């Protein structure tokens, strides 16, 4: 008789989710699904609002990555204005984006994933948490706090306002940088980089211990999608779309982000509120790809900063050839990106033009459609708006990093469950590994739960024996 194992809630991620494992007669895993159980519908309730409100409105999507939404939204508004923002305005936007990546990656590594990495997947769940990490390695925990503080301090220094800063505006940023603020941020860089390099060196010593997990945690052939610079370097703010296949062949390159619809289709399933984006030329669900730090490092030819390029070379040695396939190595890629972000922020802050006063282009809307694409910490983020003659929003589509990874996350759960779950002898460590593969992707479900047309929804009513007695189905 088949049985269902439900892991709910999935812990140490952002948002609420459920994992269902369907076991067959002999206890083997027959099916595995990752369900996003919350619904928010940002795209729908933005309709009718003036487009200039969109950066502030969409920033409310998430408490972790408001800066990412502010940037993607403002880029969509830049497109509506048909302006080219001043170079210093763009550099300042790049800095706040890199600070966001630093603090968000630090949260993921130190606070969400380090309990598994440091204490082990089979350790006592009572102590397998951040307090266990603090007791085991207080210096690491303090480093995590400090790195986040450095990222947040830069965001606050630039953004000015402590809650949902409105410093980034359509056309650029609202105020130029002062010398005093520039110097204060520069002072933080050496300490941040020391922490990042120290943590990276420590993590490299952990990697060999997790060979088994690395070979089963979403170690699968998929494509990889990210932005790259015109030179093919690591790019988090602008650039072009690049898509590589599982063998490392470039399928799409230097695609202007405004043409994303040629590449990306979106499907819906009745078991989740999260959309399932796919690579259109290969169809659904075959067109599976991954985004985020792993995809970015797999796609680039170089990072473009000294220490990060050394780390990138070491990253590629994790596997004999081709793109790094295991989702376990998202953790590794995150640490390389923290190093890069700090190096690049320092470079930008030392740029002789960074204090220039011209930071904003002013215009009214000159188009009916605007698309803004940027790299959020978890992967590529797309904002797409249509407006009417009054500048009111008539249609919105948001494709969030976590959504891009949805197909890959479902496939990864199945792989981990196949490798570790014995339905006849369920053990906590097995189920924790199923959860942990999701944590590799660092999903932010707050961002990912949006409407896409009419959401198909099924509600099942079960009696005490588990028998389904009624079903309500929509869509």
């Amino acid at each position, binding site marked *: 008789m088949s049985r269902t194992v439900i892991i709910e*809630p999935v*812990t*140490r*991620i*952002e*948002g609420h989710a459920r994992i269902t494992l369907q076991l067959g007669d002999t206890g083997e895993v027959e099916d595995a699904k990752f369900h996003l159980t919350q619904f928010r519908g940002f795209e729908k309730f933005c309709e009718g609002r003036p487009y200039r409100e969109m950066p502030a409105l969409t920033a*409310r999507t998430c*408490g*972790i990555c408001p800066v990412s939404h502010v940037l993607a939204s403002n880029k969509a508004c830049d497109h509506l204005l048909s302006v080219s923002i001043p170079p210093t305005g763009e550099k300042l936007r790049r800095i706040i984006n890199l600070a966001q990546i630093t*603090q968000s990656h630090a*949260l993921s590594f130190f*606070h*969400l994933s380090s309990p598994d990495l440091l204490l082990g997947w089979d350790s006592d769940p009572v102590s397998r*948490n*951040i*307090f266990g990490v*603090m*007791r085991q390695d*207080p210096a690491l*925990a*303090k480093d*995590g*706090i*400090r790195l*986040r*503080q450095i990222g*947040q301090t830069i965001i606050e220094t630039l953004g000015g306002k*402590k*809650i*949902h800063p409105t410093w980034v505006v359509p056309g650029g940023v609202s105020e130029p940088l002062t010398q005093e603020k520039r110097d204060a941020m520069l002072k933080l860089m050496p300490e941040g980089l020391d922490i990042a390099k120290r943590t990276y060196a420590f993590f490299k010593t952990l990697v060999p211990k997790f060979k088994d997990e690395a070979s089963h945690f979403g170690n699968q052939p998929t494509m990889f999608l990210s932005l790259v610079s015109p030179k093919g370097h690591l790019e988090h703010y602008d650039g072009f779309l690049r898509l590589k296949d599982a063998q490392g062949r470039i399928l799409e390159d230097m695609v202007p982000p405004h043409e994303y619809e040629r590449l990306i289709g979106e499907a819906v399933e009745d078991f989740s509120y999260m959309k399932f984006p796919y690579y259109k030329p290969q169809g659904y669900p075959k067109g599976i790809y991954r985004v985020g730090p792993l995809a970015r490092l797999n796609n680039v030819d170089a990072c473009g900063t000294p220490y990060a390029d050394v780390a990138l070379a070491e990253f590629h040695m994790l596997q004999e050839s081709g793109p790094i396939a295991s989702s376990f190595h998202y953790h590794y890629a995150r640490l390389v990106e923290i190093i890069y972000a700090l190096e690049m922020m320092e470079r930008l802050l030392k740029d002789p033009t960074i204090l220039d006063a011209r930071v904003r282009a002013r215009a009214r809307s000159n188009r009916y459609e605007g698309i803004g694409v940027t790299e959020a910490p978890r992967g590529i983020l797309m904002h797409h708006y249509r407006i009417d003659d009054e500048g009111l929003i008539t249609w919105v589509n948001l494709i969030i990093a976590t959504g891009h990874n949805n197909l890959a996350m479902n496939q990864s759960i199945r792989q981990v469950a196949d490798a570790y779950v014995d339905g006849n002898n369920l053990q906590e460590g097995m189920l924790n590994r199923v959860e942990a593969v999701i944590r590799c992707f660092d999903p932010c479900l*707050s961002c990912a739960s949006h409407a896409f047309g009419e959401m198909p929804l099924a509600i099942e009513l079960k009696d005490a024996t588990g028998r389904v007695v009624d079903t309500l189905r929509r869509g």
Partner: protein
Amino acid sequence: MDRTSMGGRKILIIGYGSPIRGDDAIGPLVADRLQAEGMPEGVEVISRHILTAELVADLVEHDRVVFLDAAVDGAPGEVRCRSLAPDASAMSTMAHFLDPRELLAWCETLYDKVPETFLVSACGTSFDYSNYVLTPTAEAAIEPMLDWVRRLIDPSEPLASDQLPGASPRETETPLRIP
């Protein structure tokens, strides 16, 4: 009140809550009012949408911390003040919504130092969408919350550590009475 010196004390006031969820904005709004009033040297005021881990580094740098928040468990408009103690069991399953007592537990575990901490809260009545706008009931709670904060930053009020050196803070309701 002496507005120029806190006698070397460092006090941190943290107003937190979502600015677009009705009465949940009361913490940040009271923090804004305090900023506008002007605080004595040694008193820092910050606003946060949510409480996150890096705040631990700020907490341990201060002798006294006052959290300002909305509450749902009480009579509408009721203002309460209680001291907080570290509580590791208040741990969140996520990372973007930490309880103040969890942050204090981080301070205790990592830095072996816990500031004397108070939570001043007001019970809200509506948490529906509204941008930095409170219900009249919550609006009326702002002044009593400010009174509590004024008492808690008064340099003539002794810190617990002044009375019981080395003693761990204990959690109590309404440790101070507004005259």
